[in-house]
């Protein structure tokens, strides 16, 4: 979406990934937050599987994201074509 320069500006790094709940903790530059949000919102499929990515919380520190649970309940849904 934003090319190599954009990627350098955003500098996304996956800090941790909970496979059971499919929740990732991603770190990025402060200036790149909106671009990263937009990129995640535009994801429609990964390896030919329909996919939707939602940003659950944004915080200035990783510690606060780890302390408060991101979600207690996320509605189940599936793709209907």
């Amino acid at each position, binding site marked *: 979406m934003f090319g190599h320069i954009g990627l350098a500006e955003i500098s996304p790094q996956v800090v941790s990934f909970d496979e059971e709940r499919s929740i990732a903790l991603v770190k990025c530059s402060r200036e790149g937050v909106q671009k990263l*949000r937009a990129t995640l*919102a535009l994801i429609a499929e990964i390896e030919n599987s329909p996919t939707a990515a939602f940003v659950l919380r944004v915080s200035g520190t990783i510690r606060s994201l780890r302390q408060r649970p991101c979600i207690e309940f996320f509605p189940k*849904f599936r793709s209907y074509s």
Partner: protein
Amino acid sequence: MTKFADLHLKPPIDNAKAQKEMAELARYLDYSLVGVAFRPSDKSDEVNRVRKIFLDAGLDVASRIDISITSRNELLKELREFRRNFEIVAIECRSTEALSVAQRDARVDVIYLDSALSSRAFHLNRAGPSSAHLEINMSTVIRRQRLPEHVQIARIRNEIAKAKENRFRIIISSGADNPMYLRAPRDIAAVGMLLGLDSGEALKSISSIPISLVNKNRMILGPRECGESVRILGIRDE
């Protein structure tokens, strides 16, 4: 606290499970108002059933009709038939003639150009006191269309720039016919910034602008309205 609205949900009319999932997901994502789109051919009991599912999920529901037109006469006929029955009237213009008439008609709430984006550029040009809003559907950008993604985004950016120049208000909606295409409001606002809106405009396009459109129409369609700009304030018994 900011209230968010998604004015273009298209749940499958014959799939109650998908409707329920969309309603629960929209509520979870913090939407307070949704516009549920129906077609002219949908029966009233189906419409009521779908409305009830969204209302039960805790959402405020605005009924919406999507009309796809190619000519002036078609537009005028559809508006006469449907204007008073739906809170939002959205027009998909498939020709420049239809677009020219739609953007001047005060009965049109929303203009969206999804199919037009894949063929040629249509440009908005306000010449009258119309209150039509330009709607950008996220699903147009997300779904793989005939055009490459960067061309689609460039066309949408041009349309938004033209709309801003002509003082059209812009709404961004998900256009979701499936829970997979719903997105959180702030994520949609972030896409709006990508498409040429600044941060304030992008947030308004998913909050105050759609909400004020629905509130205005509800007042107009309410029992106290008896003509253009004429409202009954009270009735005195004598």
